[in-house]
C-alpha cells in the first residue's frame, strides 16, 4: 500500500501578492539560426526582464530585489553566480538579488520565491526571471557569444545524470526510463488500457498541442502535424504513428518528449493592494503547494504531485475541478494526463477519454497546456515554468489572440515538476 506525502498545512500569505508584468523571449535554437546565432544568456535574460517591466509599466528603478534561475547554470552559462552576471543588463547593478536552481521546476519556484519576498513585507516590487540555453551552451573560457551544441550524449551524462543522488542510487546510471514511464505504466494497468489505446491518446495529445504551438509566435514549432504530414503525402493521424515519429520508450514516441531549446522569461510581482496602480488586470497568486522527492524514489512524480496538490487545496478551498485552465510541466506529455487527474482537473480514470476527444486542446472545454507544452512549444528547462506562467497570465487577461481559450477563465492551476526533485502546484486568480 503506497504511502502519501502529508506535509504541514500552508499558512495564508501575510499580504496578498499579484503578478503585474510578464515577459518571455520566443523559444529557439539560437545557434542554428543566423538571426539569433551568438545570443547569450545575458542578453536573453535581459530582454525578458525588460519586457516584463514594460508590461508592468515600471522601470528598473522600481524593482527592489530580483531572483534569477537556470536549471544548469555552470554548464549553460558558465556561471555559478548568474544573478551577479545578469544584473547590469537590465538596470539592477548593485541591487539585492539571488539565484536558485531546481532543474525543470525552477520557473515555478521563481514565482513562489518572489511571492514570499513580497508577502513578507520586506519588498514591494520583485522581479523573478530565468534563462536556460538548453541547446546552445557557453564555451568554457570564451566570450559569451561563442556557443557550442548541447548534444544528447552530453545532455544525458552531464544533465540528466545530475538529477540523481550519489549516495545509494546507481552512480552514473540514473533512472530516466522509470521517471518517464512508471506512473503511466501504473495508469495503463489501473484503467485496463491497451498499449495501442494509450498510444492513440498520446498521439492525439501531440496533434492538439502542436496545433496550439503552431499558432503561438513564441513556440519552436510553426507547423501543425497536418501540414508536416502533407509534405510527405500523409494525414496527421498516419504521420504521427509512422517512421517519422518512432517510439523510444515503452510508451513514448518522439512527439511525446520534450524539445530542448534556448529561452528566457520573467515576471513582476507586487502587493495586490498596490497592483492597480500599475495595471487594470492584476493576477493574484493564491499560493504554492510544494513537495520534494529525489530521483531514487519510485513514482516520485505521482507522490509529490499529490502532496503539493493537497496543500494548495487545503489552503485555498479550491480543487482542480474549480479551475478553468491547467498547466503541467510535461517533458513527457503523459504528465498532462496524469497530473490533471491527480489534481482533480479531470475526473479519475476518465482523462484519457478527454484527450482522445481533444477536449483538453486550447479550444476544448477543459484546456491544458494552451501553449503546446514542453513537447510542442519547447523546453528551455529552468524557464519553462515562467513560460507557462506567462501563458497563464495572458490567458487570464484574455490576450492570447488565436490561441485564447474558449472558456472565460477565472482560475489557472500550474503543476510544476523537475526531473527528480521539486513538484509545485500553484493557483492564479484573475482579479
Amino acid at each position, binding site marked *: 500500500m*503506497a504511502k502519501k506525502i502529508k506535509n504541514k498545512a500552508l499558512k495564508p500569505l501575510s499580504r496578498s501578492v499579484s503578478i503585474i508584468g510578464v515577459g518571455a523571449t520566443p523559444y529557439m535554437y539560437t545557434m542554428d539560426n543566423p538571426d539569433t546565432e551568438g545570443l547569450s544568456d545575458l542578453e536573453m535574460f535581459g530582454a525578458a526582464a525588460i519586457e516584463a517591466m514594460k508590461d508592468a509599466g515600471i522601470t528598473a528603478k522600481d524593482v527592489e530585489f530580483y531572483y534569477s534561475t537556470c536549471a544548469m547554470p555552470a554548464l549553460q552559462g558558465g556561471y555559478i553566480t548568474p544573478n551577479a552576471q545578469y544584473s547590469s543588463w537590465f538596470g539592477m547593478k548593485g541591487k539585492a538579488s539571488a539565484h536558485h536552481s531546481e532543474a525543470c521546476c525552477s520557473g515555478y519556484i521563481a514565482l513562489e520565491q518572489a511571492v514570499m519576498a513580497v508577502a513578507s513585507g520586506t519588498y514591494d516590487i520583485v522581479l523573478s526571471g530565468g534563462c536556460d540555453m538548453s541547446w546552445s551552451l557557453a564555451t568554457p573560457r570564451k566570450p559569451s557569444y561563442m556557443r557550442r551544441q548541447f548534444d544528447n550524449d552530453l545532455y*544525458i551524462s552531464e544533465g540528466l545524470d545530475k538529477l540523481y543522488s550519489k549516495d545509494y542510487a*546507481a552512480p552514473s*546510471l540514473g533512472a*530516466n526510463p*522509470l521517471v518517464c514511464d512508471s506512473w503511466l505504466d*501504473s495508469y495503463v494497468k489501473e484503467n485496463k488500457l491497451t498499449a495501442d489505446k494509450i498510444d492513440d491518446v498520446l498521439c492525439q495529445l501531440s496533434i492538439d498541442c502542436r496545433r496550439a504551438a503552431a499558432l503561438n509566435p513564441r513556440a519552436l514549432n510553426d507547423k501543425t502535424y497536418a501540414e508536416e504530414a502533407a509534405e510527405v503525402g500523409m494525414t496527421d493521424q498516419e504521420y504521427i504513428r509512422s517512421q517519422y515519429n518512432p517510439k523510444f*520508450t515503452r510508451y513514448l514516441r518522439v512527439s511525446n518528449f520534450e524539445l530542448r531549446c534556448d529561452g528566457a522569461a520573467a515576471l513582476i510581482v507586487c502587493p495586490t493592494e498596490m497592483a492597480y496602480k500599475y495595471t487594470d488586470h492584476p493576477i493574484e497568486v493564491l499560493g504554492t503547494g510544494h513537495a520534494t522527492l529525489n*530521483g531514487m524514489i*519510485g513514482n516520485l512524480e505521482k507522490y509529490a504531485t499529490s502532496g503539493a496538490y493537497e496543500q494548495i487545496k487545503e489552503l485555498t478551498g479550491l480543487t482542480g475541478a474549480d479551475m478553468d485552465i491547467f498547466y503541467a510541466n510535461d517533458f513527457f506529455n503523459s504528465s498532462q494526463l496524469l497530473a490533471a487527474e491527480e489534481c482533480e482537473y479531470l475526473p479519475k480514470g476518465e482523462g484519457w477519454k478527454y484527450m482522445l476527444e481533444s477536449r483538453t486542446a486550447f479550444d476544448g472545454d477543459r484546456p491544458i497546456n494552451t501553449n503546446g507544452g514542453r513537447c510542442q512549444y519547447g523546453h528551455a528547462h529552468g524557464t519553462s515554468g515562467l513560460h507557462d506562467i506567462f501563458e497563464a497570465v495572458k490567458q487570464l487577461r484574455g490576450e492570447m489572440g488565436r490561441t485564447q481559450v474558449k472558456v472565460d477563465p477565472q482560475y489557472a492551476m500550474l503543476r510544476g515538476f523537475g526531473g527528480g526533485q521539486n513538484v509545485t502546484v500553484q493557483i492564479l486568480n484573475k482579479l
Partner: protein
Amino acid sequence: MERVERIVKKWYEGLEEGKLLGRRCPECGHIEFPPHYACNECGHLDTEWCEISGKAYATCFIPQSMMQNNPGLTEEYGDFMWAIVQIEEGDILDGMNTVVLKVGEDRLEELNAKLPVPVKPCIVQRDGYKMLFWELDE
C-alpha cells in the same frame, strides 16, 4: 556537538560483506533503507543500525530505452530491466528506482501479470565498489 558519522561508507562496507544495512528509528520502529541519519516517518532525529532481510518485491518493470545512461551494465551483466523495488521492511514511500539484472524485455508481459514479483539482492562489483542491484527470486 553531534558526531558526524559515515553512513554511506558503512553501507558500502556492508555490501562488501554481503549485508544490507538500514537504520531503525527507536521512536516509531520505521526502517530507513537505504540508511539516513533521521527518521523520515516520524521526524525523530536519531536512528540505529540494523540489518535488512533482503526480501523484496518488484512492483513495476520498465524496459531499457534510449533515455538511459548505461555505462557498461549490459556488457558486464547482460539483460536487465528498470524496476521499482520495495523491501519487505518498507521504506521511501512504496519503493525505489533500481535495476533488476538477468532478465530481458521478452519476459515483461509474463512478469507484469504476476506483480508484485519477488526479487532478491544481487550485489555486483563496479569500478572500485560494490553495488546493490536485484534479480528475480524464482
